[in-house]
C-alpha cells in the first residue's frame, strides 16, 4: 500500500472517532504546552535577569577579595590593603587594578535616613574607565579631580535626594561623619551589581576621601581590568594573582559569575521540563490505551484488510501513522497553547512586580524589578517540542501497532 493511501486510511479512522481522537490529542497538547510554557518562561526569565546583569557589566574584569575559605582555613590576619595595588603591576595582561573601599554608615538625606548602608570609595576616573557605559552621570557630572569630597549616587538614590542636595553619613564603627552635596546622579543601570560594577542603589565617594577621612586602608576588593577577555588570559592572570597573594585571595572572573547563574537557570529549566515531561508520558499512556481499545474494536477490520492482501508492515504503519498524527497535531497545538499561556503568565508576573513600586529598597542590594518577562521560544524548542511529541506517540503507539500487525488473519476474522 502506498504511503499516501496509508496516511489517508489512518486519517479517516481518526476522523471516524472524533471525540476520542480529540481527547487523546488534548493529552499530548497539555503535555507539550506544559513543557513549552515552562521552558519558554524559564528562558525569558533567564534572559531578563542576565540582561539586567549584563548591563553595566564588563567581561574582562576580575574581582580579587580576601578569601573566606571553608575548605582551606585562610589566614585570619590577612587583609587586602590599598597599597597592595603595586602587587598587580608586575602581572602581565593587567591594564588596571582598582581598589574598592567600603564603609558602613547611617545615611541621612535631610528627613530621610537609612541605617547601616554601605558607602563605597572608588577612584572616579578609574571606575568610569572600567565601566564606561554604566558609571555615567545622567544629571550633574562625575568629578575628575581626586580630592573631590562630593557624592556620586545611583539612580534609585535619586528618589531620596536631588542634585546638589546634601547627604550626611556617619560611620557605624568610629562615628566619623561626612557631609557634602551630590554632584552626579548615575543613569539607570537596571541590574544588580555584578563584577563590582556600579549599581542603582550605590552611594559613592572618592577612595581618597574614604581613606583619609574615615582612616580606612583595608580594601573590600580589587577590580582588575584585563587587556583581553580570553579564557586563557583570565585563567593565567587569576593564577598569577593568587600566587602573588600566597593563595589568601579569591579571584572571581565576572564571566564566571554569569556562567554560574546561567547554569543554575539551565538546571532549573531541565527540572521544570522534566516535571512537564511527566505529563507528556501520561499523554503517551493515554495514546497507548486508546490504540489498544481501537485495536480490539478493529480486530475484524484488520482481518478483512489482511484477507485483501495487506501486508503486516502496512498495518503497522497505519496504526503508527494514527499515533503520529495525534502526536503531531497535539504538539503543534501544544506549542501554541504553551506559548500563549507563558505570555499571559509572564505578563501577570511582570505586571505584579511593576505594581510593587521601587523594588528592593536600599537594604543590601535588593531584588531588581523584573521589567517584563516575555517568554522566549526558539526554533530549536519548536523543533524539539514536535520531536518529543512525536517520539512519545511513536513509543507508546508501537506496541498496539505491533500487535495489530501480528494478528493472525483467521483469528481476526473470527473475532466478534
Amino acid at each position, binding site marked *: *500500500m*502506498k504511503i499516501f493511501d496509508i496516511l489517508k486510511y489512518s486519517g479517516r479512522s481518526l476522523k471516524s472517532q472524533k471525540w476520542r481522537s480529540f481527547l487523546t490529542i488534548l493529552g499530548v497538547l497539555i503535555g507539550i504546552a506544559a513543557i513549552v510554557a515552562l521552558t519558554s518562561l524559564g528562558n525569558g526569565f533567564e534572559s531578563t535577569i542576565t540582561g539586567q546583569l549584563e548591563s553595566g557589566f564588563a567581561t574582562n574584569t576580575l574581582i580579587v577579595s580576601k578569601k573566606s575559605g571553608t575548605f582551606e582555613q585562610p589566614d585570619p590576619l590577612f587583609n587586602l590593603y590599598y597599597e597592595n595595588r603595586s602587587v598587580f603591576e608586575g602581572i602581565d595582561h593587567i591594564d588596571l587594578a582598582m581598589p574598592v573601599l567600603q564603609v558602613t554608615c547611617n545615611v541621612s538625606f535631610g528627613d530621610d535616613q537609612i541605617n547601616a548602608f554601605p558607602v563605597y570609595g572608588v577612584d572616579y576616573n578609574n571606575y568610569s574607565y572600567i565601566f564606561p557605559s554604566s558609571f555615567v552621570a545622567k544629571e550633574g557630572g562625575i568629578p575628575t579631580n581626586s580630592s573631590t569630597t562630593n557624592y556620586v549616587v545611583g539612580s534609585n538614590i535619586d528618589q531620596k535626594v536631588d542634585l546638589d542636595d546634601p547627604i550626611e553619613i556617619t560611620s557605624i564603627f568610629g562615628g566619623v561623619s561626612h557631609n557634602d552635596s551630590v554632584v552626579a546622579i548615575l543613569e539607570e543601570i537596571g541590574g544588580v551589581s555584578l563584577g563590582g560594577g556600579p549599581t542603582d542603589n550605590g552611594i559613592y565617594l572618592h577612595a581618597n576621601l574614604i581613606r583619609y577621612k574615615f582612616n580606612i586602608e583595608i580594601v573590600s576588593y580589587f577590580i582588575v581590568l584585563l587587556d583581553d577577555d580570553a579564557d586563557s588570559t583570565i585563567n593565567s592572570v587569576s593564577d598569577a594573582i593568587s600566587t602573588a597573594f600566597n593563595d589568601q585571595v579569591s579571584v572571581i572572573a565576572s564571566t564566571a559569575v554569569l556562567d554560574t547563574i546561567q547554569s543554575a537557570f539551565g538546571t532549573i529549566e531541565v527540572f521544570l521540563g522534566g516535571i512537564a515531561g511527566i505529563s507528556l508520558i501520561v499523554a503517551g499512556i493515554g495514546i497507548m490505551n486508546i490504540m489498544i481499545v481501537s485495536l480490539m474494536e478493529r480486530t*475484524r477490520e484488520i482481518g478483512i484488510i*489482511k*484477507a*485483501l*492482501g495487506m501486508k*503486516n*508492515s502496512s498495518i503497522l504503519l497505519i496504526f503508527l501513522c494514527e499515533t503520529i498524527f495525534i502526536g503531531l497535531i497535539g504538539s503543534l497545538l501544544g506549542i501554541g497553547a504553551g506559548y500563549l499561556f507563558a505570555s499571559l503568565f509572564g505578563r501577570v508576573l511582570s505586571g505584579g512586580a511593576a505594581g510593587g513600586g521601587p523594588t528592593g529598597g536600599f537594604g543590601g542590594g535588593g531584588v531588581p524589578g523584573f521589567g517584563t518577562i516575555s517568554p522566549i521560544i526558539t526554533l530549536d524548542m519548536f523543533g524539539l517540542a514536535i520531536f518529543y511529541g512525536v517520539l512519545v506517540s511513536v513509543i507508546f503507539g508501537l506496541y498496539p501497532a505491533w500487535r495489530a500487525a501480528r494478528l493472525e488473519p483467521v483469528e481476526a*476474522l473470527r473475532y466478534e
Partner: protein
Amino acid sequence: MKFVVKTENVEKTYMQGKIPVHALRGIDFSVEEGEYVAILGPSGSGKSTLLNLIGALDVPTKGKVFISGQDISELNSRKRAELRRTIGFVFQFYNLIPRISAFKNVELSLSVKNISRSERKKIVKKILTDVGLQDRMKHAPNELSGGQQQRVAIARALALDPTYLLMDEPTGNVDTKTRDMIMKLINQLNKEKGRTIIMITHDQFIAKDSDRIEYLVDGKLYHKPPKERIGYNTNSLKKQKLNDNKIIASEEKS
C-alpha cells in the same frame, strides 16, 4: 488441465486448550480455471477451515495446499499476503469496513495492490455499476440493505480481478429475495464472465447452479451426497430450480 487451487491430503487440527480438534482429516480437492464449485456441509464440518486454507489465510497442519502452483506452507506471511491479492473473498457477514463508503470499501482492495488513484476510480465505478450499485457508491455500509452490502463485498472481491472467488455462505444473512438475486449474480459471474468460483454453503439450494458439488462431512470430502448420513432432501432442490428464473425476473424490476 489447469488447477487454480489444489490440496493434497490436507489436515487441520486446532488445539482447544489441550484437546485437539480435527477440523479437516485428509482433504484432496482441486478446482480448475472457470469452474463453479460448491462445497456443501453442515455446521462445524470444517467448511470455513478449508476456505481459509485455499484462501491462503492459514496453513495446513499436514498435507499441502497449492495456490497458483505455489505451496503456501513454504511462503512467509508477506508472500502469503501478496498471494491473497489474487484471491477474492466474500464472507458471510459482508465484512465491510463500516466507517467508509461503498466506493472506498471497494477501492481499498485496489490501494492494497498499489494501483494508481485514477485507475482505481475507473475500476471501482465500473465494478459497482456491474453489480447494480451505481447510485449507492457514496453510501456507508449501514445505509445499505443486506443484499446491497453483499454486492459491495462481491464488488470488492472482483476489483482485484482475482484468479478465483471464495465465498463463505454468501447468502447466509439475507432474505430469500436478496438471496436469489445474489445467486443470480454469482451465476452470471461464472457463466458470462468466466470467473472461477468456490462457494461454501450448508444449503443445497444455493448450490444448484454450480458445475460440481463437493460434500464436506466431519472434516472429510465426498463427491456424492452421503444421504444416509445427513439426509439431504434432493427433491426440494429440483422444485426450487424450476421457480428460480421467475424469482430473479421479478427481483430485477423492483
